[in-house]
């Protein structure tokens, strides 16, 4: 298959199929609903039902730009210009999927953003054997190891309980779609009273419909945070602190693996849990798929491609610029 990388996105030329294009194209596969992957008004959009629904919340129907949305369930296939497209879970956020493209006797897998180990909310990822793999490397350095979902849940819940016992308000920073709902789910399931910021709460019904209910949450009122855990977007931190209350900030993120995240995020508690693969998971992905050819497209691309080449895999870091940093990275740069 002829793959072309440009600032517009990745183009599978023979099929005229764009993978997570940055601007509107005739046909696009969207791997998940984060704004750096699902954007614009491509004429035909293929994605999982959850992804398409979340996409619509951010990019509402527009009569001037008619679209055809094709929903593809996990494990379901679609014939497309003589190719077979099959979608598999990617674990990153609700609805996130990998795409297997079978064409001309070749199997290509595009992971999108992916988390191999089971997430707090979402389906377990499947390894899809392939010849060529397009893989993200957000955490593609051997310093990045993360907590499992059970460990992360314990850390989140214990931190909240400790703070509440001391009369302080635990505040969890998370970006609007994915992390925020996962933290809320962990807290809600543990019976901890919680208030959720609007930007995160907006997507809670989608998570609840998918089976991840958050009992007893209420909308955030920054004047009334006593006795509750709060889940907010990082930008809200200053507002909370300005209340003068005893606010204790926890930062749940892959970047929280490094102690310097404490200063960068302004948090006292670091919980290194990510919705991306750790370094070891990335290595495991590559080896389990059996791919002989890997395109590394995000994060520490050069370094990670180099590491794969050391292991005898044909790996490249194609010149390719996504227009914006991923949502999770935005938090780290806060």
């Amino acid at each position, binding site marked *: 298959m002829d793959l072309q990388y440009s600032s517009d996105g990745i183009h599978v030329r023979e099929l005229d199929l764009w993978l997570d294009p940055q601007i509107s194209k005739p046909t696009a596969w969207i791997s998940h609903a984060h704004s750096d992957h699902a954007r614009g008004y491509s004429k035909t959009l293929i994605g999982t039902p959850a992804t398409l629904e979340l996409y619509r919340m951010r990019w509402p129907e527009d009569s001037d730009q008619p679209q055809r949305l094709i929903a593809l369930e996990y494990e379901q296939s679609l014939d497309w210009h003589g190719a077979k497209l099959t979608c598999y879970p990617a674990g990153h956020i609700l609805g996130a999927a990998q795409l297997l493209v079978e064409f001309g006797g070749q199997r290509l897998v595009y992971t999108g953003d992916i988390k191999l180990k089971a997430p707090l909310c979402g389906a377990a990822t499947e390894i899809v054997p392939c010849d060529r793999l397009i893989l993200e490397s957000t955490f593609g350095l051997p*310093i990045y190891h993360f907590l499992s979902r059970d460990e992360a849940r314990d850390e989140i819940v214990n931190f909240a309980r400790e703070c509440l016992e001391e009369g302080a308000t635990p505040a969890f920073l998370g970006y609007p779609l994915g992390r925020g709902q996962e933290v809320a789910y962990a807290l809600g399931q543990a019976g901890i009273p919680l208030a959720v910021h609007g930007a995160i709460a907006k997507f809670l019904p989608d998570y609840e419909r998918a089976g991840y209910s958050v009992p007893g949450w209420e909308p955030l009122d920054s004047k009334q945070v006593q006795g509750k855990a709060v889940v907010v977007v990082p930008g809200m931190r200053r507002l909370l602190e300005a209340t003068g209350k005893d*606010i*204790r900030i926890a930062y749940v993120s892959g970047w929280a693996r*490094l*102690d310097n995240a404490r200063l960068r995020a302004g948090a*006292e508690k670091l919980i290194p849990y990510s919705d991306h693969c750790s370094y070891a998971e990335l290595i495991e992905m590559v080896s389990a798929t059996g791919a002989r050819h890997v395109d590394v497209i995000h994060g520490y691309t050069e370094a990670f491609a180099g590491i794969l080449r050391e292991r005898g895999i044909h790996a490249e870091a194609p010149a390719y610029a996504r227009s914006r940093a991923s949502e999770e990275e935005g938090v780290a740069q806060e």
Partner: protein
Amino acid sequence: MSATFDHLAEVLDRIANTSSRNRKLGVLADWLSALPDADLERGARFLCGEPVAGTGDRKLSIGHSILREAAVAATGFPIELFRLCHREVGDTSETIALLMEGKSAGESLSLAEAEQAYLRLFAERKTALKVELLQGMLERMRPKTTKYFLKVITGNFRIGMQQKLVEDALARATGAKLAEVRDAANRTGDLAQVARAARAGTLAALEMKLFHPLEFMLARPLDDVEDLVEPESWWVEDKYDGIRSQVHTDGGKVRIFTRGMEDTTAAFPDVVEALVGLPGSAVVDGELLAWREGRALNFTVLQQRLARKKVDASLIDKVPVVFVAYDLLYRDGALLLDAAIETRRQKLESLFEGVGLPLMVSRQWRLSSREALEDTFTGARIRGNEGLLLKKTGSLYESAKRSAEWLKVKRPYGTLDVVVTAAEQGSGRRATLLSDYTFAVKDGERFLNVGKAYSGLTDDEIRELTRLLRSISKERFGRVTLVEPKVVLEVAFDGVQKSPRHKCGYALRFPRIVRWRKDKEASEIDGLERVRELYERSLA
């Protein structure tokens, strides 16, 4: 059962992950109290970032490059990859621990084994063999332990655990009185020994040790002369504008320590040479001053001595320095902290009897009345000194205390109206607030930074200011927020000096906030020409 370093690493991790001092203290005290006797000493020592006991000035001699070499060997990662990772992490010990994940045997490490390892590393003088030893350790122990095992060597935990917290925890863990723990730590400079004695109930028997700095006694500012109680019961000295220093001497050996507990002996060979001649053993509190023709020179002149690694004859000639002694804390085996000021003074004078420059004893006299204070103060300023120090008759030397028995009388050198251009998060209780302010003066249409201040406002004011500053923030770099130049402060300071640190070319000494000028706008603040004027005045 011997305690493990693995457990210590967990404890330190928990301390890092909370801002609550109480919680830090509880975690640490629990750990210390559960340590068997044999481990208590080494546990306390490791907490102070000291891998081995009683090594004096000799160090482990393990720096970044040795650690890196060992890590590269143990992980098999290429050095470029190590560098890239280190750049992301910013700390060598942490980088290595993260890279060792999944690459070590994950064996448990006891505190005793850790000490053995440190001793072997210390004894081995050859770099290649140090690397080999370290590599072996990395391959053996758990990566989470590795992080703190290495941080004990590099001597910096950076987890918000000051020595005072360790002392508090020791007292709580052993049931000893906090004041006694602190006194003993001050006398001996050896927390390991203090830990053992605290548990054994023998703190009082610990004897003073020379050549580690004792905590300094500090003075409180006397803002208003009218506030002085019993004006007739004070000793008066000039307040010098030099480097507060503590001199330790014993039979020809001399060490000079600053208030920051740093050893500055090497910067003052001329003073050391004179101190060598003092009889017996002593610890003297005093001040180093640049000195010419009977009076002190500007502090900036003195700084040139500290800035240099090697002090040669020409520098000594250019910046002659004297040591003005004003208190005696120890003399020939006896600690004098609990002796009255009059006794200490008398012993000090007899110790320095007959010595000449570069050694002097600070002149001391009794204040006659409140009214006399004004003239006395002016006299001190004429002599080139900063102001006065009042010391209560009969007072003791209260180490580490900002005591009401010592009062400093200073007048601000000047004040300026300035505008805040950037604000930084504070620490501790003020961690969530913007409490450190960078401020600027006007230069035409521009604002040029001239200093930074973080004291002088009430908590309520800081909270209000934080809210306001966040609403006018322009850009953020980590803890620092750049803001629109809108908030006007009046700052007082003790002098102006030339400085490349700020764009305007000057820096204020000890700037502090007098008040928040809500009544003023940025256009009304002082200009660069006023700063220049004040600088010229200081030269005159």
